[in-house]
């Protein structure tokens, strides 16, 4: 049986789960220019994060995977301590 790989989406939070590769660009929209955070969790522990000041509307970031453990991880977008978007990413 051939297992189809998960597709890679530019609008990553529009999918519940997606496979990501090293250096992949992904986009998302924000509605404020306050400081935001992207965090990746393995289970309940945060393993990496990035804080940034977004531009209003569409933002594009790059995800590097070489330091991340293989498997399923949770990617969240945080604004003012509130999780405003989340998805599951798969690293192979």
């Amino acid at each position, binding site marked *: 049986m051939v297992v189809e790989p998960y597709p890679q989406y530019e609008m990553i939070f529009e999918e519940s789960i997606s496979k990501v590769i090293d250096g992949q660009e992904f986009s998302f929209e924000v509605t404020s220019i306050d400081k935001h955070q992207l965090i990746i969790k*393995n289970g309940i522990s945060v393993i*990496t994060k*990035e*804080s940034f000041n977004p531009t209003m509307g569409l933002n594009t970031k790059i995800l590097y995977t070489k*330091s991340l453990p293989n498997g399923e991880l949770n990617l969240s977008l945080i604004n003012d301590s509130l999780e405003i978007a989340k998805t599951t990413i798969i690293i192979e």
Partner: protein
Amino acid sequence: MKKLLYILLLLPTLVFGQSGDGYVNYKSYKTHYGNGNSSTYNGYTYSGLAGDAVELQAMLDVNHPGTSLTHEGEVLANSTGGFQSGRPSRWANDYYGVYHYGWFQAQETGTYRFSLQSDDGSALWVDGDLKLFRPCCGTSYVDISLTSGQWYYFETKWQEYGGGDYMYLKYSPPSTTAYYYPGQQTSSLKVTNIEPTEEPIDPSVDFQFEFNSNMEPDKIKFGVYYDASTEQNGSDWLNTSTTNSTYYLDSDGTKDVTDYLNLVKMSDGKKATTTGGSVEWCVVYDYDTTNKRYRVGIDKREFPSGFTFTDLKQLKLFDLWDGEITYMSDDAYWANYYIYTDTQFDFTSSTFSSYIRDANGFYGMRAEFSFEDVEIYKKHRLLFVHAQDLWNPQLFIDDYVTVGDVVSAFSELSGGGINGGLKGDLNGVQIQNADVNQDGNFDFQDTFKLLKFLQGEENLTTYQRTSDIMRVIPKSEYDGTTTSNWKTQPNKGIKSGVDFELIYDSIQTPQYKVTFLGDINFSHSPAQTGTSPATQSTISSRMMSVRNSSTQKNTSLEVDLDIEKTNENIVVTLCIPENNLNIIGSEFRIRFDNERVSYDRIETTSNLNNFDVERSDYIKLGSISTDGSLNLNGGVEYKIYFSLQQTFDSILGLISVTKSELVIKNGTIIESVIK
């Protein structure tokens, strides 16, 4: 698992045809001269009714003048000629005896109850042992433990003097109280009158390795090798596969290696076998109690021409000895050997005693010798091998030898108080693991070696290989290792494989437990059966060959993580908040993308003994107070600086925290959550 297969072979000595399944053989006799008279042979007299099994045997012994064989053949076991009344063809209805014999195979393991009911007396033997004698007239029972699949030779004898005549043999299998005649229910007992012969069975070896549940045994590779020291190609141990194959364990740690064995046998000298003769070709000197051995001399005229006397390795000497012998010397007349045994021979009770002469200091043996070649299987070895693709020993060592292990080691060693000695928290295997310099003692040399390893100043072992850290220990030894005997256990050191011998017609299931040098808190080792380790590490990272695990939870502590980019650096900040947990050890693992960033330095507010060790794509860092005099109750901050190899608009995923361990003085792990 291989099943026993049986081939039924005809017994050439029998003159009647044999049908096999369901049948038994019989012989019927005229007894008591056919008229009720007593018979005397060799000083023994039988008369009317058999009073015991000896008298019954005598009645069916054709050496007795009153007894003669009249009929023989086969009958269905489950018939009136069989065990439904015991009356096959016979000369008359009085003064006769019947002998039934055959083989039965138990279909269940457990206790079978047999019953004999007869008029007149009867008896049952199994594998030559008298199990039951029933005098006239009634029923007697006997319980016999049988093993499913095993064949047993059985015999019944009974006699009829006059009047009523019958014999019933029944059995009740372990699974029911119902009784059946042999041959009536084959699902519980099979019967045949043809001797079953087992097909030769090759050795079978099914290993069982027990790992810590964190481990993934199916990521661990091994090879199977055989002792090739007798071959001409130089190497002592060769892979049994011509392609030098290696294999993975099954996910539960087991592996049937039967298909990987080298079953080519090699010569192992000669074996001598003796039979009774007319000349004393052999002498056995009195037992040497000091050396626990007999000296045996064999007249050289008994050996074939050109025989190499040192080749004689085994001896079957009547029914006195059947086993190995050791060459001693030979002269013009005698070849001398030693038999080492803790048990002295019982010459007088030997069935060959008539061939043995006690000569006051030695025994003369009227024995004839024959010689045969002895072939044995080559010794085998299962060896775990380094599988770089799935098993990175350096990473693995960093995963299982952590600040928790070092704290546990120091705590154990210093816990004995002013009188010295150990604290008593660790079991024997944990102390063996703590003896990291492998000098047979657990002392401060070991704890400082562990500390230097934690600080990156010294490797745990010379080479970072599986074979340098793995300890494969027989399960019984592992579970039986205590704080008292750990120094004298045969497998106290590093051992990444097991030697084993192949045994003909045997299914071996060797059981081992696998631990690792330096795994003092048993984070990656199985517990001893019946005990639990004093401490157990938290496994927070998803390392290769290591599963995530639910961990021993004590108090949870949140550790703050911040990652920010400056013009020149990425700065990772880990902050343990103020607490009252008396944490004396911390360790974090920071993985980084070594093609895009490089490790620069660390800054910390900790006043403990701090460490940071750079590996190829991760660093481990933390703090430790080896004597427990300092702690992190006031909180601590670690700032780890990475230099950028290029410009970045995004840094997500360039650096990650994959391990966090906080430990208190007795080695207990405090669960931590990175926020």
